[in-house]
């Protein structure tokens, strides 16, 4: 195995509280209560440890990170530690004064999520009336302040027909980048998969639309596109490999190799309140469990892509097969792949559009 490299970025999930209720939210089904959130001092220490460990960036996320009153303090701490700071927000709870305070603390970039290009579908997906206008107002504030802006769109069967409108809207609000991400199916999204899964034909159309938009908007808008891997031939390199590039800290201080890792039943994650970040990164059981290639089963073990995609996503392997140590079923070489494709096609066709909204206690 090659020498262990330091992590590049910290994803700080400050809270699970959020005014929205997106049915594909990447938070775990068991949402952390406000009372269990780490206090400011612990976050500041964790942020400093991340910088010492070699991280260059910190992404403040949630839930909705702006519900934390101490966000400006955390941004200031990260900036003082030399980290490049990014706020990932739904933009419904940010006014001019708060944004100015965050920028004064050192904030460098905002990633603003939209549930659709328009209010009608977007607000049904987010479960929050009036969200769209607030988001547009937030976009304006961010751009007026001279900060770079990324517009994030999670796409699925119920909004993918607006893909072109989403891209045009990103340009209109002055975004530099649009992130168009197909839903990843674990946690809440797995619960709502039947209401979200696109068909293969829809997917192909999306890919064509993205390619055309990229050509049309070269030098105007960077478009990052995350393909849905149920229909892929080979899986994505999830997080750039388990425990290779990223650290995620949950609201209560659990240190995870990926924001979805809490969906892996039976795995225990260390808490940064009990153990230093460096120690967890280097020596914890969870980080070493799927690191590198030694843990791999066939067909990964003898595959020439094993250091390209690192066997794909552990959370997806677990969600589909019940075993996190199997090859990602999104891979065409996996024994489970045919079942996955069949499942996706069946759900896309059945077109059941009702949601289980992301709420405290709703997962049942």
């Amino acid at each position: 195995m090659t020498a262990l490299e330091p992590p590049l970025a910290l994803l700080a999930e400050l809270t699970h509280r959020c005014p929205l209720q997106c049915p594909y939210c990447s938070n775990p089904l068991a949402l952390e209560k406000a009372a269990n959130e780490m206090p400011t001092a612990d976050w500041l220490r964790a942020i400093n440890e991340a910088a010492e460990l070699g991280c260059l960036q910190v992404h403040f996320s949630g839930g909705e990170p702006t519900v934390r009153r101490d966000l400006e303090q955390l941004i200031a701490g990260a900036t003082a530690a030399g980290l490049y700071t990014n706020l990932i927000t739904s933009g419904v709870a940010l006014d001019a004064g708060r944004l100015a305070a965050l920028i004064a603390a050192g904030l460098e970039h905002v990633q603003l999520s939209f549930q659709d290009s328009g209010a009608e579908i977007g607000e049904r997906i987010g479960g929050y009336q009036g969200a769209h206008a607030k988001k547009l107002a937030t976009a304006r504030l961010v751009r007026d302040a001279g900060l770079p802006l990324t517009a994030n769109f999670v796409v699925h069967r119920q909004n993918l027909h607006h893909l072109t409108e989403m891209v045009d809207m990103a340009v209109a609000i002055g975004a530099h980048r649009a992130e168009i991400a197909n839903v990843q199916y674990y946690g809440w999204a797995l619960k709502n998969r039947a209401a979200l899964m696109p068909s293969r034909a829809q997917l192909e159309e999306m890919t064509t639309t993205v390619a055309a938009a990229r050509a049309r908007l070269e030098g105007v808008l960077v478009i990052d596109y995350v393909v849905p891997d149920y229909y892929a031939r080979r899986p994505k390199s999830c997080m750039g490999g388990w425990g290779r590039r990223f650290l995620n800290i949950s609201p209560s201080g659990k240190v995870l190799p990926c924001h979805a890792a809490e969906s892996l039943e039976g795995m225990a994650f260390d808490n940064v309140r009990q153990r230093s970040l460096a120690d967890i990164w280097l020596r914890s059981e969870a980080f070493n469990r799927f690191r590198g290639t030694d843990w791999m089963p066939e067909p990964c073990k003898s595959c020439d892509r094993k250091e390209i995609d690192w066997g794909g996503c552990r959370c997806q392997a677990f969600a589909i097969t019940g075993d996190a140590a199997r090859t990602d079923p999104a891979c065409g070489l996996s024994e489970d792949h045919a079942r996955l494709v069949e499942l996706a096609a069946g759900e896309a066709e059945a077109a059941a559009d009702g949601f289980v909204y992301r709420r405290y206690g709703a997962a049942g």
Partner: protein
Amino acid sequence: MTERTIIDMASIPRLAPHMRLRHDKARAQWTIQAPERSFVLDPVAHAIVSRCDGAARLDAVVADLCTAFPDAPRDVIEKDVVALVQNFVDKSVMQA
């Protein structure tokens, strides 16, 4: 911005606001920290980017690089500089 900026020798490029040229101690290399991106700069790229200060025209940057790298032909340097700056401008990492 709704139109692509085309880079030539008369352009006066610099890093866009909130893009940070930063030395990465842990990995001993220069980088640009950008939104959700980290661009690694090899020594040549660093030499180019660090000279793009928003005051120098690109032909002056090229002339300066010719002095710093006397073994490299001017037309090669010019081509590399334009390609690199155009790429960063297209990604909103630099502006001109």
